[in-house]
């Protein structure tokens, strides 16, 4: 038993570096919001993102006054950039939930320093994703028709359609992610409330923290609720991208109608999401001097998750090609040939393989895994690759279906691009605002990572100890401390 615990400690090295105590981690994280002058770089970054967001507002205005004809999608490619971008954004959100929920259940303590902004990333990505189907309905002011409510028209949604499943999945996902994020924030907002000097922010944080005071009874229910939410989010996140994949796989279009889609989509989502987490946290930890909380070890772990999920995705590509051939259906065989070398979009496929399949192979090597620079580059490449993946799946399957007479080509218009780039602007605008006004790292959870958070065992018979939890606490430090106490 002792041996395994020691082995576990080796497996789970200290996730907070440097000489920190409760006060210093609290101050370090909360000062970013409360005390430090907003760095000049923040204004630059926020300014650029905010300007790019105006592209979105202009596009949406033009779209609403004109109609979705301003986009390039038309028969036979009725689903194009809006759906590509929708799936891309939803996928990015998945890493946040994976980090906050699944890694919590698996007792991976390293999630603690990155879960807060990964969850924020989820929320903002889902917000961006939601815009696309909403606007693609053509009349977004009637989007509430998607929800079942009794109405004078006597109409109901058609529940056998994957598109309605999507409405339920995505709206539930957005709601539960928001709840999860907010519950995690309550104790930290209370910290900000107690430390804020500015009266206005004191009141705002006071309202948001709901009068949290860290009572033992409250913590007790809080931890149960948090664990249950994690337990609920785990099947939820798996179901969301499965249901998104049903939009495709329930149809009969060659290239979409494959049973591998749900797991393949979920793995791709986590893959893309971890790439986005890395893209966000590599600059963040440098600019905000957070290397002692988001350590190099965190980056290595994320790189490994990326490699693992990336390999699942590569397996998915191989299986898609295999299914096409093995189905012996001439349409499937044609689709695969068309996608890989015969069709006009063949080079997208190979670009995709290069971005998602080849680039991640570098992660097998320590040199790349442990270099923040290379991780950043690979993450960017993977983000592009995952966008291309959705492009390949959607466009190459639709543009040449069963009837050659209905074949066509797709090319995006300028408004497809301004819309996509505009949502990137919106995403980063929200991220910058979040970084400025809320604690980017979960303060109370980081406190639990410190050796001094452990109740020492010197006092026999009182309560369980934290020993049975595989975490980063260094036993010798605690022994020394309890000896001092005596």
């Amino acid at each position, binding site marked *: 038993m002792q041996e395994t615990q020691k082995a576990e400690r080796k497996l789970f090295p200290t996730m907070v570096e440097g000489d920190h105590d409760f006060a210093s981690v609290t101050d370090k994280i909360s000062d970013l919001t409360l005390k430090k002058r907003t760095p000049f770089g923040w204004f630059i970054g926020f300014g650029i993102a905010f300007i790019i967001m105006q592209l979105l507002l202009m596009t949406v205005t033009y779209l609403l006054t004109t109609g979705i004809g301003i986009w390039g999608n038309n028969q036979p490619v009725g689903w194009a950039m809006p759906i590509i971008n929708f799936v891309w954004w939803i996928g990015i959100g998945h890493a946040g939930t994976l980090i906050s929920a699944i890694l919590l259940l698996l007792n991976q303590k390293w999630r603690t320093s990155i879960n807060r902004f990964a969850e924020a990333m989820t929320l903002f990505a889902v917000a961006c994703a939601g815009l696309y189907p909403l606007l693609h309905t053509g009349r977004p002011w009637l989007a509430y028709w998607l929800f079942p409510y009794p109405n004078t028209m006597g*109409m109901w949604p058609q529940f056998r359609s994957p598109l309605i499943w999507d409405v339920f999945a995505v709206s539930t996902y957005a709601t539960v992610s928001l709840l999860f994020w907010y519950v995690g924030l309550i104790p930290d907002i209370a910290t900000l409330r107690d430390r804020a000097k500015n009266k206005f922010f004191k009141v705002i944080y006071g309202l948001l923290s709901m009068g949290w005071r860290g009572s033992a009874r409250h913590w007790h229910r809080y931890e149960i609720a948090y664990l249950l939410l994690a337990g609920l989010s785990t099947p939820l996140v798996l179901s969301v991208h499965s249901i998104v994949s049903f939009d495709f796989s329930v149809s009969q279009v060659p290239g979409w109608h494959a049973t591998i889609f749900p797991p393949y989509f979920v793995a791709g989502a986590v893959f893309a999401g971890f790439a986005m987490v890395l893209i966000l946290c590599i600059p963040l930890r440098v600019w905000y001097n957070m290397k002692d909380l988001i350590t190099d070890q965190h980056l290595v772990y994320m790189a490994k998750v990326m490699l693992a999920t990336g390999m699942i995705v590569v397996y998915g590509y191989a299986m898609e090609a295999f299914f096409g051939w093995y189905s012996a259906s001439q349409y499937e065989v044609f689709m695969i040939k068309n996608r890989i070398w015969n069709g006009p979009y063949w080079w997208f496929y190979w670009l995709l393989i290069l971005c998602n399949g080849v680039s991640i192979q570098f992660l097998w090597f320590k040199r790349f895994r442990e270099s923040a620079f290379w991780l950043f580059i690979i993450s960017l490449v993977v983000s592009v690759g995952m966008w291309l993946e959705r492009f390949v799946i959607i466009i190459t399957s639709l543009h040449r279906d069963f009837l050659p007479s209905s074949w066509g080509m797709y090319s995006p218009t300028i408004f497809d691009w301004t819309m996509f780039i505009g949502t990137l602007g919106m995403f980063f605008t929200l991220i910058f605002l979040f970084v400025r006004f809320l604690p980017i790292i979960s303060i109370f959870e980081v406190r639990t990572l410190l050796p001094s958070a452990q109740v020492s065992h010197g006092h026999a018979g009182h309560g369980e100890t934290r020993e049975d939890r595989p975490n980063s606490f260094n036993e010798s430090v605690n022994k020394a401390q309890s000896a001092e106490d005596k």
Partner: protein
Amino acid sequence: MSNRSPANPVGCNPKAKVMKKNIYGLLAEFDTPTQLVDAANRIREAGYTKTDAFSPFPLHEIDEALGIKRSILPYLVFGGAVTGLLTGFALQIFVHYIDYPIIVGGRPFISIPSFIPPAYELTILFAAFTAVGGMILLNGLPQPYHPVFNVPRFALATREKFFLLIETKDPKFNYDETREFMQGLDAQEVFDVDE
């Protein structure tokens, strides 16, 4: 045991000289979680029941030390999940079998497999709302005011310090004795908590 009377509603020792005003309880401050848990064990063993502890992060040991019973929250959440599941199926069966039966894709009116995804999502949605709403309501939140906030140093409970409270409502509460007892618990300082 209690000294409660109409003239002395909080039941504190009428002979106490120090105590001039009505107070909510006594609050002791500690530096480490170990001290807090030890002190909590000792106040429980001394027979105090109207107690609470405050810490900047969840401490599992404190539940046992203060004798906090396991919350009923998981059962509520299970109830929420079942309600969500039944709502999901009931809604879809009502829509596609009773109110507006229409054949789609040659499937039966009640096509359970197609109804699973929305019912599944509603299960999770209802359970999540129950978990969060239940936690907040059972905790008596939102509660912007609480007497412990009157102690200026209590602001550190969300930063680094640990606090232990004995309310005057406690039948065993006696201002002088309790204060002395709490000071003997290794506390940094003991504060009066104004009502």
